[in-house]
């Protein structure tokens, strides 16, 4: 039924007969609105809106990353975020979805390339929801390698992660693979490990292989500061907003009333992450640091993602508090190791993702998600399974990403030249300046 057909019979002609109007509008409905058809429709509406929110996180990542990096690379950051989503969603359509959710074995799926054979609307909705997740995993890497990676190499990498790296380990946990078939299946409700750690470890491989930015660790001078903390903050607010889709959408059902508790634990953990990260920085440095506070929000969000449907509000607060502390020390650690991560992606997504996944094994509570963790009398089994998942995904993601980045390094090269880096990626890669208003003042 197309739009205009409906409209013809619509509105004012029927102004006098609202009843007729309703009938017209609901042609399908009268063919049979049933409780089940309504539930199915509500589930779909929920999945789609959640997917839209997760899509919007791309804007959040773009603002966060550009804010935390220099203006001479601002255009490049925008391009990377635009393009990893675009190539990523095409790659996930062509290949990734089939590998992740297609029938296959415990390790990999192998049916449904190009959405072949898919006809059910719900499956389309589900594809979209999964595609925006895949693109999120890809985007995480962008920030960690900002300011020096070659655009063409990044582009290839972002196809590989959405077409291959993300879907395979995703299959293990969400697609019916081995980690979900254990006696005690791994719990990663919305993807602390499937999405965030995976992206974080890939970012770690990327940052290590591409090396630190010029001047980052070689001189006495301070850190390389970003060019707009305002935009970085906007990015965090957008990400937090989108995260509601990420977590609560992961029920893939609007009739599943746990979406309420998920939204609450998400909010509390994020708030707790801000508070604890800020206080930690205050104690350590004597001032409440904005970079850490922003990272604290994300740390809280990443940390609660795995257990958002399985823990109590109080546990969510604790998980967020610990996430906010971890991110402080983790950022400092990677700095000491001279692994240059301009936006803190490795700490926020990798480390806190791991923490969040383990936290399920500690804080899960039967009355919320049906499973008890160590602190609630469930024994150590769940925790061990969570640990197994964390390690397995680390090995897979870090391993494959290392191979990939090294291959790129040895073939087409992975890093711009020193001169290009000094000039800035905007100019050399895109022939552009982000803020070129000087000579045009007229």
């Amino acid at each position, binding site marked *: 039924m197309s739009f205009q057909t409906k409209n013809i019979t619509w509105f004012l002609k029927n102004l006098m007969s609202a009843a007729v109007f309703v009938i017209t509008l609901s042609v399908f409905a009268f063919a049979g609105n049933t409780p089940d058809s309504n539930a199915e429709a509500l589930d779909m509406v929920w999945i789609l809106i959640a997917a839209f929110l997760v899509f919007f996180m791309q804007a959040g990542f773009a603002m966060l990353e550009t804010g935390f990096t220099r203006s001479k690379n601002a255009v490049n950051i925008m391009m990377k975020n635009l393009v990893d989503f675009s190539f990523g969603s095409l790659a996930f359509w062509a290949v990734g979805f089939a590998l992740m959710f297609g029938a296959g074995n415990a390790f990999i799926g192998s049916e449904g390339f190009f959405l072949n054979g898919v006809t059910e609307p719900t499956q389309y909705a589900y594809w979209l929801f999964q595609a925006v997740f895949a693109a999120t995993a890809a985007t995480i890497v962008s920030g960690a390698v900002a300011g020096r990676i070659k655009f063409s190499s990044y582009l290839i990498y972002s196809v590989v992660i959405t077409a291959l790296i993300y879907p395979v380990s995703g299959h293990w946990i969400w697609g019916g693979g081995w980690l979900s078939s254990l006696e005690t299946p791994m719990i990663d409700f919305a993807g602390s490990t499937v999405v965030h750690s995976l992206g974080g470890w890939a970012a770690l491989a990327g940052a290590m292989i591409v090396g630190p930015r010029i001047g980052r660790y070689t001189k006495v001078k301070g*850190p390389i500061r970003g060019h707009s903390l305002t935009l970085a903050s906007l990015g965090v607010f957008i990400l937090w907003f989108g995260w509601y889709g990420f977590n609560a959408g992961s029920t893939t059902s609007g009739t599943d009333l746990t979406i309420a508790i998920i939204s609450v634990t998400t909010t509390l953990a994020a708030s707790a992450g801000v508070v604890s990260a800020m206080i930690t920085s205050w104690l350590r*440095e004597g001032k409440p640091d904005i970079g850490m506070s922003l*990272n604290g929000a994300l740390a809280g969000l990443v940390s609660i993602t795995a257990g958002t449907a399985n823990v109590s509000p109080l546990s969510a607060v604790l998980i967020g508090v610990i996430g906010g502390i971890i991110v402080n020390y983790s*950022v400092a650690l990677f700095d000491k190791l001279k692994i240059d991560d301009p936006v803190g992606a490795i700490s926020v997504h990798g480390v806190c993702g791991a923490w969040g996944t383990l936290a399920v094994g500690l804080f899960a509570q039967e009355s919320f998600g049906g499973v008890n963790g160590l602190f609630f009398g469930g024994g150590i089994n769940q925790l061990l399974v969570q640990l197994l998942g964390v390690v397995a995904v680390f090995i897979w993601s870090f391993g494959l990403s290392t191979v990939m980045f090294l291959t790129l390094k040895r073939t087409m090269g992975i890093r711009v030249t020193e001169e290009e880096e000094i000039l800035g990626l905007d100019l050399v890669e895109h022939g552009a300046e982000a803020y070129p208003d000087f000579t045009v003042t007229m």
Partner: protein
Amino acid sequence: MKKLEAIIKPFKLDDVKQALVDIGIRGMTVSEVKGYGRQKGQSELYRGREYHIDFLPKVKIEVVVTDDKVEEAVRQILLVANTGQIGDGKIFLSDIEDAIRIRTEESGNDALN
């Protein structure tokens, strides 16, 4: 004709401008600069790391005055821009050979009035 270049603290700009105008100076040119000097820069934080900023924001006022106004202008600036704290800035004096008003092509002291 002399040029005075005064490097001052940014928040003193309005006062200095007013002081100069009050003694009959009718034009000046101002720019934002960064200064390095005895005033040690702030220590800042960035994502959990403390570091030191060497360059501090300053404002540079360039004003070209006739020889007879130099002393007064200097005195006014000293009066107004002084907070008594390190970093108040400097005044540099140099010679200007000629000034020309673009609109009228007047030159010399006439260009300044």
